[in-house]
C-alpha cells in the first residue's frame, strides 16, 4: 500500500486541449498523489470536465501528456482497467434494467464484483428489475457509482456527480464514496462547483480557472499556509506591499487580507489580527482573483517544477 500511496494517480505535463479556437485547458502541470479525495473546483468553463475527460482517455490532448495510476498513458487498456469513471449526468442505458447494467458492466471489465454490486443496490433499495431510465436522479447516480466501484478501481473519477442530486441524495452519495475510500483505499478525484460538501470530504484541492490550474495541494497544507489578516483599512495598502496577498477585501474601517504565508509567519503589526482560513473562504478568494496562484504540489520532474512558484 505504501508504494501505491507515493505514486501519482494523475500526472500531467504541459497538458493542453483546444476545441476549435478555444483553449479548454492550457499548459496544465499537475501531480495528484494517490490516496486522496481530490476535489477539482472551479467556475463553469474552467476546464474541469476537459481535464477529467483527458485523464479517462475520452479526449486526446492537443499538446502535453497525461498519465494515470503511476505512469500509465491515459486511455490505454491498462489505464482504463484501473479507473472507475462516472461521467457528468451519469449516462446509463435508460432502457436497460439495473440488473442488466450490472451484467453489462461485468462483461466489459476484467474485474467485476457482481455480488458486491447486487448487495449494494439491495442496500440502497434499487430494484434490479427496474429500468435505469425509471430510477430517480439519486438512484441513477448511485447505480453509476455502484457500477464504477464494483470494478474495484484504483482510481475513482467523478465528474460533477452531485449536480443533479437533492441534498439528501448528495449526502448519501458522498457517504458511499467515503465508505469505498476507507474500505478499498481507492483514490478519488471529483469535480464540483458546490463547495460546501467538498469541505467535508476532500483532503486535496485543485482549483482551476480559465483552463489553468490555479491552486493545487493538500487541504491541510493549503489552510496552514494561508491566513486572514484583519486591520485598519487605512494601513492596508502599505501593509499589503510586504505580503503575498491573494485577495483583499475592504470595508469602511476594516480590511481583510487573505495572504499566503507559506508557514513563515511574520509578526503581525499592532492593530492587526491574524485568523486561520477556512477552505470555502480560501477557494472563494482564489476564484475572485484568477491571476493568483498557489501550486505547492508534489515536485514534478523537469522544467515543470519551475512553474510552481507564486505569482502576484
Amino acid at each position, binding site marked *: 500500500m505504501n508504494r501505491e500511496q507515493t505514486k501519482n494517480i494523475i500526472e500531467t505535463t504541459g497538458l493542453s486541449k483546444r476545441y476549435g479556437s478555444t483553449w479548454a485547458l492550457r499548459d496544465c502541470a499537475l501531480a495528484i498523489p494517490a490516496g486522496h479525495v481530490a476535489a477539482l473546483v472551479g467556475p463553469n468553463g474552467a476546464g474541469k470536465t476537459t481535464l477529467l475527460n483527458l485523464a479517462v482517455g475520452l479526449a486526446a490532448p492537443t499538446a502535453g501528456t497525461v498519465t494515470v495510476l503511476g505512469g500509465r498513458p491515459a486511455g490505454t487498456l491498462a489505464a482504463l482497467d484501473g479507473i472507475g469513471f462516472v461521467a457528468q449526468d451519469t449516462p446509463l*442505458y435508460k432502457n436497460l434494467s439495473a440488473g442488466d447494467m450490472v451484467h453489462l458492466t461485468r462483461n466489459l471489465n476484467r474485474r467485476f464484483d457482481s455480488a458486491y454490486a447486487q*448487495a*449494494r443496490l439491495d442496500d440502497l433499495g434499487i430494484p434490479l428489475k427496474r429500468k435505469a431510465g425509471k430510477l430517480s436522479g439519486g438512484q441513477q447516480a448511485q447505480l453509476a457509482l455502484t457500477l464504477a466501484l464494483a470494478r474495484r478501481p484504483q482510481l475513482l473519477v467523478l465528474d460533477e456527480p452531485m449536480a443533479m442530486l437533492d441534498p439528501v441524495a448528495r449526502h448519501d452519495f458522498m457517504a458511499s464514496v467515503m465508505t469505498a475510500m476507507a474500505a478499498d483505499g481507492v483514490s478519488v478525484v471529483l469535480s464540483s462547483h458546490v463547495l460546501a460538501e467538498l469541505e467535508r470530504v476532500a483532503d486535496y484541492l485543485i482549483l482551476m480557472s480559465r483552463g489553468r490550474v490555479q491552486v493545487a495541494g493538500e487541504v491541510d497544507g493549503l489552510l496552514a499556509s494561508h491566513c486572514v489578516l484583519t486591520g485598519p483599512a487605512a494601513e492596508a495598502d502599505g501593509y499589503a506591499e510586504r505580503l503575498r496577498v491573494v485577495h483583499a477585501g475592504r470595508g469602511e474601517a476594516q480590511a481583510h487580507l487573505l495572504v499566503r504565508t507559506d508557514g513563515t509567519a511574520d509578526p503581525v503589526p499592532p492593530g492587526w489580527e491574524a485568523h486561520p482560513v477556512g477552505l470555502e473562504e480560501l477557494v472563494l478568494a482564489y476564484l475572485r482573483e484568477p491571476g493568483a496562484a498557489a501550486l505547492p504540489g508534489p515536485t514534478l520532474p523537469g522544467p515543470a517544477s519551475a512553474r510552481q512558484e507564486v505569482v502576484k
Partner: protein
Amino acid sequence: MTALTSPARPAEDASPRPVPWRRMGWVTWRQHRIALTGVAALLGVLAVYLWIVGLQLHHAYAAAIACHPASSFACADLIQTFNGMDDFLANGFVLHAVPALIGVFVGAPVLARELEAGTFRFAWTQGFGRTRWTVAKLTSLAVVLTAGAGALSVLFSWYYQPYLNPGNPTLNLSEVSQFFPGLFDLRGVGFAAWTLAAFAIGAFAGTLLRRVVPAMAASLAVYAGLAFAAALYLRQHYLTPLLTSNPNPPGSAWIIGQQWYTKGGQPVSPAVLGQLLGGNGGTPKSADATQYLIQHGYTFWTSYQPGSRFWPFQWIEGGWLLALSLLLIAATVWLVRRRVV
C-alpha cells in the same frame, strides 16, 4: 463490511490481459436485441411467404412442363397460370427494402444512439476499450445480419428458379434474364453483400452525424442512391459486353444495346431509319423491313451480357460491396478512435 474490501491486486496490473472478445456477445445482444428481433421477424415473415408462394410456383411449373400435348387448351391454361405468377413480391421491391431497413434501423443507430445519449462516455471508459468495443460490436452485427440476408436470398433463389430455366421459351413459358435489374441483386451473393453495405453505411453515417434520425435519413439516401446507380449505370460495365448480329439473342442474356449499323460501321439513327423505310413505298411490315435493311447491307448489332456471366458479375458486385463495407467499418472505427469529446 469485510466482503466489500477489494482482493489484493495482482502485480501485472500495468499490462492487464484484455477482456475476452466473446464477452461482447451478450452486451451486443442485450443492447440490440429489439432491432435484431425485428430483423429476424421481418426475414421470418418473408421466408414463410416465399416458401408458400415458392411451393405454389414450383407446383405450377411442374404441372405446365408435364402437360401433354403441349398445344392443348388445358396446357395453355397451365402455361398462362405459371407465366402470370411472375410478380416476385412486386418485382422485388419488398425484398429490396430489407437491406434498406437494416441499414436504417440497425446500422444507423448502432453508434449514433450512444453518441446522442452520451452513453459512449460510459461504454468507452470500461476496461474493454473503445476500439475493441467498436470492432466487436460492428463485426458481430455485420456477420449476423449478412448471414440472415444470405439465408433469405438462398430461399429466394429457390423460389424464383423456375423462371430461369433456359428451356422455358420452347414451351412458351416465361424466361427471365438473371440480370434483370430488380432480380440480380436478390440472388447469389448480391443480397447479402447489399445488406452488409447498408449496415456499414448506416454505422458510418451514425458515427459521422452523431444523431440517430439524421443518420437514418442519410443512410437511406446513400443506400438507395448506390443501389440505383449500381443497377442502372455500374453493373453493365463490370465486363465488356459481347456483340452479336443475331436478332434473337438468348433469353438469359442481358441486352445492353441494340442498333442498326451501316456497312461502314456507322450507327443508323431512328430518323434515318424511318427515311430508309419510308422511301420504300409505304411502311412495310416489320419482318419485311428487317429483311429489306439486311439486304441493303445494314446490320442489327446487339450488345449483351450472356447469362453465363451471372456468377462473375455476382462476385464482382459482391467484391466491391464487401470492400466498401470493410472500408466504411474501418473508417467508423477510426472515427471512434480519434473522436474528440
